[in-house]
């Protein structure tokens, strides 16, 4: 099917990652759970995941290795 699913996945998680990281930086006090700024940390994780997906999609290999 014409659309590589990695594009929307990558875009969405990059966007959410940026949002979450930004929120974690701006609103430090409101992002803490059990003494960790979880929004900041998890935002970065999502961001990395999103960018990796985008990289995969732009390299344009038709199928990533399966199984």
């Amino acid at each position: 099917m014409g659309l590589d699913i990695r594009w929307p996945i990558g875009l969405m998680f990059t966007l959410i990652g940026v949002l979450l990281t930004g929120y974690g930086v701006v609103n430090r006090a409101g992002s803490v759970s059990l003494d960790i700024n979880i929004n900041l940390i998890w935002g970065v994780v999502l961001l990395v995941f999103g960018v990796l997906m985008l990289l995969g999609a732009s390299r344009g290999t038709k199928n990533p290795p399966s199984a």
Partner: protein
Amino acid sequence: MQPIHLAWIDYAILLAYVAFVIGIGWTLARYMKTSSDFLTSARSIPTWVTGLAFISANLGALELVGMAASGAKYGISTAHFYWVGAIPAMIFLAVFMMPFYYGSKARSVPEYLKMRFDERVRALNSVAFAVMTIFASGISMNALAKLLNQLLGWNYNAALWICSGVVLLYVLKGGLTSAIYTEVLQFFMIVLGFAPVVYLGLKDVGGWHAMNQSLQTVASNPSALLLKPAGEIYTAHAWTSAWQPVLAGPESNPMGVDWFAMIFGLGFVLSFGYWCTNFLVVQRAMAAKNMTAARNTPLVAAVPKMFFPLLVILPGMIAAALAVNPGKNYRLPPPPIDSDKFTIAVQVLAKSPSQDFEVTYSEISKAIGIKMSKEKVEALVKSDAVLSLGSVIAQDEQAQAEAQTTRTALKQLKRGGTASSSDIAAAESKVADAKNSLSAAETKLKQTSSALNEQLRDAVMANDYDGVILSLVKRYCPPGLLGLALTALLASFMSGMAGNVTAFNTVFTYDLYQSVRRGFVDTSREVTIERVGKTEDAVITPKEPKDFHFLWMGRVVTVVGILLSICAAYFASMYNNAMDIIQLVFGFVNAPLFATFLLGMFWKRTTATGAFVGLFGGITGSAIFHALTITEGNIPGVKGGYMHVLKEFPSEMAQNFWLASFAFTACFVLTLVISLVTKRTKTDAELKGLVYSLTPKIVDHNIPIYQKPAVVGVVLLIVCVILNFIFW
């Protein structure tokens, strides 16, 4: 329950998800040219995508919520649903069954049954399946709307229609491909949305080791958490070992299941029946681009599936471990109290200062309808909130009366027509004052009652296990992460609906509509035609309509399917037992099905009549089995035993597993015997590609070893066995 307040960041994440989902549907819309594109994705999707969609279709919210609930109730034994149930079945599907599904070019599971047997078996299976998908999607949407209503204070109807509308939008645009793509998105959403919650939970409870120790305390006295009736005690590892408690017998494990029911009932009948024959999941593999991809789909899916207990069962175990630690200030969530029950309870509380505590206690228990904790009710009755409750209500009533009188006075003044403007102004200001004091009194009353509601709920001696996962999300997630976790939950509910609707779609269009239409319309008819004064006999053979017709039909059925799901959701919300009944019927229909497939695929002698009667007998058999057995502590009724109680099982799960075993055996034996006494209607040549012994073996020399289903399957099986031993 107090609705939680979402910050803008939470809404932003939620909206981003919805926008992407609809966007995917829109982008895919231009590829939807034929009915096959729309209903079967034209068999063109890469393996890793179909593989993730394969587990995602099953990982609905009910699974997510239910597994966490079972994790708290039964501990690590819940993982048997994965390590004994799902994984072996998925490997079997990939290695042995997929070649027939994919190779036969059938577009759906019922269509395979038609090719292998006949129209009757197909009709029985497709009608049952169509009804089930609608109810499954209805249940899912009802649960979602209820959740949004309780959690965020949204209107139930609005939540139901809006969420269904979103699903409709993207499924209508992009068909099965849309559903599969969003399932992949949802897969990542769930994993990435819940992983931090699990991590924080584990950190809070003090790590894996500390959790296990707390769970040993739980096992030594489960009634402290209301997990079991008082007096039931288990060995220390009942919550933390997967096999030892099961092997020790039904009395020694919280599930109340013996090893035979576990391995045969769950591991063989239920799991193989679900994973190998349920079109909802099999459809994902059938959309793959070639045979190898189709066979590898369940194998790709098995890899994450194996580790899902970490994500879905662990939260339940964490919750139980937290609850047993008084320092953590956590209790397993109590069930929400219906508003009408609550109103009665408040009336009882209001008069409680003037009456004997025993009377109050029994009246409160009666009003709520569940056993209440005596100490907590006593503390509540003595609390300031209750002591002042009478005056708060009196103030509110007085304010209401005041508002009423001032309004009437003002009306009379105005109607009289003789009052001076200053009189009217004075009366108006009186009305305004009364309004102000009324709203103050009402706020006070509201605050008091919501505090009372929380405390009353806390005093209820019961757990709402389905609330476990949410209670953890609420406990650990700051704004931002909360939005992510809620979006993950929402995503899984919506894709539950999308998955069912797309499966319904295909089965309805190809198996019911197209086949019935052929039966009525497309049969050749002999007619007498009058032509230029002469009459002659002729045979008319109508043609199948253009494919466009079925594409259009698929779209219409999507809309109809979603509307029917909404009706099913209302049905489920109206009757408390609706869910139990529906799941019961699912059990009856699903349990025997695998016997039909097993015999049909691996024994060429199986006849259509044998399969049909066997399937029918299996379904009836399981209904009768259910009517004759019951679980300890249940009263005869929906939960079984309504005809006569022949056998009592220690737990519902045991009853369920044994029912499945019985239904399977009944169907197997009936199909076998009737096949032997009836004549075969299909020749060996007709069964080529449909039956194991008549199909040439697939030669996969030309694919790399890590893509060979048999090789990958064996490796996965070994890993799965190792997992079982690690948590022995």
